């Protein structure tokens, strides 16, 4: 009887120590779920979800404070990916946040730019190059198409243009669209 109690107590002590050590040794920094969610978001940093960037939105989703359907740039694909990750039902995009649009790129009309630097301060990814009273220009490769530079511009010289397809980024069309109707008769 006594040996049994002793044995169990010692074992409990050992396991307790082990668990305690493991919790310190293998401590995960940050919030892994928010990280995973952040990976799925398009990183436009546009704020259409009402959070100041993709990271805060992903943290809000992880904490259960925000819904998964608030990201218009990601659209349906992102909602589906988030639903798969979090094992919840996918739902249609919240129209309060905006609608899904084709990918665009900001272009500065360089003749009209007065060099006020307001757009530079607004750009979340530092994709605008310029200095006070100098012409500004957009680094096309870095622009996420978030449209945040549009409202601050006092002369309205920034336009959003649809990104043009070129033969190198062209994708083969989905053949299933043709054969689904025929293939799925069963």
């Amino acid at each position, binding site marked *: 009887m006594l040996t049994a109690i002793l044995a169990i107590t010692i074992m409990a002590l050992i396991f307790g120590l082990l668990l305690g050590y493991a919790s310190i040794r293998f401590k995960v920094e940050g919030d892994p779920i928010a990280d995973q969610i952040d990976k799925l978001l398009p990183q436009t940093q546009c704020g259409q979800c009402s959070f100041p960037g993709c990271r805060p939105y992903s943290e809000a989703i992880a904490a259960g404070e925000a819904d998964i359907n608030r990201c218009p740039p990601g659209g349906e694909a992102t909602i589906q990916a988030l639903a798969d990750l979090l094992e919840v039902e996918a739902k249609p995009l919240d129209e309060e946040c905006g609608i899904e649009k084709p990918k665009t790129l900001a272009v500065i009309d360089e003749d009209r730019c007065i060099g006020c630097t307001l757009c530079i301060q607004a750009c979340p990814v530092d994709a605008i190059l310029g200095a006070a009273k100098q012409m500004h220009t957009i680094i096309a490769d870095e622009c996420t198409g978030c449209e945040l530079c549009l409202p601050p511009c006092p002369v309205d010289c920034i336009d959003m243009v649809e990104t043009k397809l070129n033969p190198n980024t062209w994708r083969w069309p989905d*053949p299933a669209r043709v054969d689904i109707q025929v293939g799925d008769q069963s």
Partner: protein
Amino acid sequence: MTAKQHTFVGGLKLDGHKKRSTQTAIHKIPLSKKLILPLQQHIGEASLPIVEVGDKVLKGQKIARADGHVSVYLHAPSSGTVTAIDDQPIPHPSGLSACCITIETDGEDRWIERQKTEDFTTLSEHEIRQTLREAGIVGLGGAGFPSFIKLNPGVHHHVETLIINGVECEPYITCDDMLMRERASGILDGIEIMQYALRVKNCIIAIEDNKPEAIAAMELALATRSHLNNTSIISVPTRYPAGSEKQLIQVVTGKQVPSHGLPIDLGIVCHNVGTSYAISRAIIHGEPLISRIVTITGKQVNKAGNFETLFGTPMHELLAFCDTKRQADEPFILGGPMMGYNLSGDHLPVTKTANCILVGVEDAAPAVDPLPCIRCGECATVCPVSLLPQQLYWHSRAKDLDKTREYNLFDCIECGCCSYVCPSKIPLVHYFRFAKTETMNQELETQKSDNARIRHENRLERQEAEKKEKAERQRQRKLALAATKAAKEKEEAEKAKTAEPQSDDQEK
């Protein structure tokens, strides 16, 4: 000729349909009034124009330079005036446009000064590669990979064998066949240059056994060069796709190029016979790559044959020259029936990779809607890379891109054997191409969003640091202000103190 033959798995025995286009010698296509030259006719970065609209150019003059390492120069195929540098439709399955240089020819066809090299051994290996890069030489077998890179094995690789690909396994195409029949000596010159640049002695010229004339011509030419005693010609059995690089290496050496690997990992470099001929023209005669031999054949072509065509020549001129019966909007195939793709417009230019124009495939099966897969497994039997096309099909169709990767989608050479044998007529290769471009696009998007995340984080960090710095500066200023204030007060107090005794003195 009697080397031990190996083989690759799968593959098909196809009807060659090569007779029609090999009846006549190689002809030249008459000079076109307008030549349209896409800046990207090779794998890698597009070239950068170095001429302007209105410039007069000579035949063989450089008009665009290489941009980055994997890129080559582009040349004017004839003398004339540059009339435009803008987006023009290019031969591509997308039907999209890309930047092209348009030259209006003056009919004089005047050459720029050519630097001939009688003895190429006076050049260093590096100079040869540089010359080939500046001559715009790319693989003419179909892929268009810059040749100078393949002639640079690097210090970590030792090249043991050079394989010259004269297999030309796809039905209808005969441009390499005719080239070997008529210009065998030039091909051998190119081989000697490549052997010199790669410092390799062994060379195997592989030709499919359905081209006895080409084999005879090459052997005759080889017999006159006693110093090429380590070069041999082997005839390989006719079986599609024996001309695909990896399959050919397997047939010739019995070795398999590993997945994600390159032939150079096995000490092998493989070049097409057309490329070899272009190399000899570039080094010995100083002529850059400005033309190629194009097979024009098919049921609707009355005068089928092989034609030496300047790049940029619009295809409708070729088709008219060969007396082709074709409706204006009827699609035709660029490349062979297995790997080629449909083009709808005929004003597209001939490019470096255009080996065949096929109008009207003989006994072509009528286009039918695909039926459900019956899991017969024929596709897996014929796949020359031992993939499981059926599994790849399910996953591509479900857009499960990770799964298609697990099944090695990127090892698929898109030879078309699986689609060919499929009893349900499922366009399997189309599915695989779709899944490949989707995967590549997804990777690009991930890369872009990762980049945006990093840039955003850096910005936040910088803003945070700026804020801290500002606060620090304010604190310092406050402190300094307080210090000066305190000092002043102290001074005043001291003054008051010293003033008091003075007044005392005065009182005294």
